[in-house]
């Protein structure tokens, strides 16, 4: 796929409406200057941006449109300060210093609002339909679940947003993805998302925003929609969204940072930003999920996935460069073509992350693990302090601990292993996170298989990949 520029067709979609509401003007470069209504931050991608502002002696004119949290490097066992890992301490302290100096909102480390950015921000009601939201993090697309236009940006752009509340951007095309059919038992939003990626490929979404719709999405909870949108970027789409509806509005009602006095007025506005019934798209795709089964990835990118009944594709089914890449993935992952993953031993199970670290995800895992013992090291990491409290109220912590799982404090943990939670050597993990890239979970030779919380839980119980449906 080439650079996408010009020849836009989409009209009257949520994307078009939100984009034009936030357009400040066209820059001399031909890019659009776009206003940012919600700016989110974490400790890894922000310190250099603050430094750039200091260098230029700039302040932030709209500090209250920004909210920050520390999540990536924070330890998940012992939070006493200073952290044992001095680099993590420096990064967290730097964020604390910056939010104070620039007067931004901050979800403090030991407060009941701390958590993985993409779990805690929506949960606190900061993300609304119709917002243009950015964060120096590619999974910002998660917020599209609310009908916000949300995307990840780089650190230099973080400094642009801090200094001007705007940034330069090119408009994307819009692909409508209709997800149809009836989703089977034990099949989750995660499986649907991985199936979309393997169907449209990891770079199929480059140049596009994905609008997810259809009967399956209509019936999804907000948690499920967040999982779906979270993975949009893994399919190459910088942004993914679901049109806001009553599910969205009901979720936001009463959330700490959602509108209170103006709630009804807000709902009217939110409803008005949804794609019109006569909206036009650059592309429309239908994906039927009636026959879909739980998915496990076998390779080193999220498109390399098979269902529990399928076998890893044979090497000969690839040709040219794809064959080289498949062989490289086989070697790295220690698997072969034609093998089944079911029954393959794993060393670690990780349940958490901004993809699957919400209460409903832990509930699914608990449903399977309850009353059993796990056969391998299993980390269960709540996505936020609120998820953790919710889970403890429902007794999930006890279910997990009784089964032999580790019950951790909220953070990114083993999703990208910028803290002590890491794979060792070429350990094989079943992970509910979103990236199976080489080295992603902290060991340069570690092997990551992406799965749903159900599949992760069944795998933990058997010590090898298992079809979760027999436990449901």
């Amino acid at each position, binding site marked *: 796929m080439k650079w996408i520029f010009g020849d836009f067709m989409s009209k009257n979609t949520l994307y078009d409406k939100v984009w034009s509401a936030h357009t400040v003007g066209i820059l001399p470069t031909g890019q659009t200057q776009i206003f940012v*209504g919600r700016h989110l931050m974490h400790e890894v991608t922000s310190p250099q941006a603050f430094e750039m502002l200091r260098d230029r002696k700039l302040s932030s004119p709209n500090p209250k449109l920004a909210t920050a949290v520390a999540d990536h490097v924070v330890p998940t066992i012992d939070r006493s300060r200073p952290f044992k890992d001095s680099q993590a301490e420096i990064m967290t302290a730097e964020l604390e210093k910056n939010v104070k100096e620039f007067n931004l909102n901050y979800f403090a480390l030991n407060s009941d609002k701390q958590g993985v950015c993409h779990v805690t921000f929506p949960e606190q009601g900061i993300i609304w339909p119709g917002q243009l939201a950015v964060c120096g993090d590619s999974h910002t697309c998660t917020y599209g679940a609310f009908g916000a236009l949300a995307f990840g940006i780089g650190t230099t752009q973080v400094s642009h947003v801090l200094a001007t509340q705007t940034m330069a951007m090119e408009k994307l095309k819009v692909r409508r993805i209709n997800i149809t059919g009836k989703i089977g038992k034990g099949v989750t939003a995660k499986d649907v998302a991985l199936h979309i990626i393997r169907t449209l490929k990891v770079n199929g979404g480059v140049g596009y925003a994905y609008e997810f719709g259809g009967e399956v999405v209509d019936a999804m909870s907000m948690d499920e929609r967040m999982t779906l949108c979270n993975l949009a970027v893994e399919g190459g789409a910088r942004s993914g969204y679901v049109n806001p509806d009553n599910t969205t509005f009901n979720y936001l009602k009463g959330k700490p940072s959602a509108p209170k006095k103006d709630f009804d007025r807000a709902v009217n506005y939110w409803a008005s930003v949804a794609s019109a019934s006569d909206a036009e798209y650059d592309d429309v795709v239908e994906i039927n999920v009636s026959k879909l089964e739980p998915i496990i990835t076998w390779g080193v990118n999220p498109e390399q996935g098979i269902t529990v009944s399928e076998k890893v594709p044979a090497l000969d089914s690839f040709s040219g460069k794809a064959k080289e890449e498949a062989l490289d993935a086989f070697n790295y992952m220690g698997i072969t073509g034609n093998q089944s993953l079911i029954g393959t031993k794993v060393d670690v199970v990780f349940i958490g992350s901004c993809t699957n670290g919400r209460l409903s995800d832990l509930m699914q895992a608990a449903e399977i693990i309850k009353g059993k013992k796990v056969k391998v090291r299993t980390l269960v990491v709540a996505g936020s302090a609120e998820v953790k409290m919710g889970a403890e109220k429902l007794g999930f912590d006890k279910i997990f601990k009784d089964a032999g799982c580790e019950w951790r404090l909220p953070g990114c943990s083993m999703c990208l292993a910028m803290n002590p939670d890491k794979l060792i050597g070429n350990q094989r993990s079943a992970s509910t996170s979103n990236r199976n890239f080489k080295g992603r979970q902290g060991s340069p030779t570690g092997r990551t298989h992406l799965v749903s919380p159900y599949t992760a839980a069944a795998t933990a119980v058997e010590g090898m990949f298992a079809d979760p449906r027999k436990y449901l």
Partner: protein
Amino acid sequence: MAEFVIKENIISSVSGTAIPKPANDQNTDDIIPARFMKEITFANMGKYAYCDERFKDGKEIPMHPFNDKKFRGGSILVAGVNYGCGSSREHAPQALYRYGVRAIIAESFAEIFAGNCASLGIVGVTATAKEIASLIEFINNNPSEKIVVDLVEKKVKYKSIEAPIEILEGRRRAFLNGTWDALTILQQNKEGIKKVKETLPYLRFE
């Protein structure tokens, strides 16, 4: 709006020797593994470029293009499809920049990565699979030959060859006008920013 020009920042071409890195879907975790990002400045990132691929058990893998003496000092990276996919980490283009990369020719780029490159002044251009293949072959056979990425003529030039390249027109203009450092131009339209801020209903919901 009149053409806005920042002379010191003008980049009309990049020339230098090249580094071949032809695989598809090279992601930001390949370019810089997350565990090397635990620093609050970008100063050291150049050392970490492709770290996990370049070293095995602490020893340099001499064949890796970022280690191979033939390609040392190269400033133009040549890559495959969907280069820079994965995370939004600016550490990735920063690592390449600090390693010495000033231009990347690929079959295609991941969106966020391409934007991050542009905002650092790394010129990212695309060329067809065929052109990339010939270019890679040329570099492997002539590692010390200079390659020129010419933004004025939209061509990559080497020896007597001139092959077409593509780049977003807005981005090309930004390099040619020296306005790729967007902050300076974003600061111009204060009125426009104020207007959008005042008309967006949700900023006033209580």
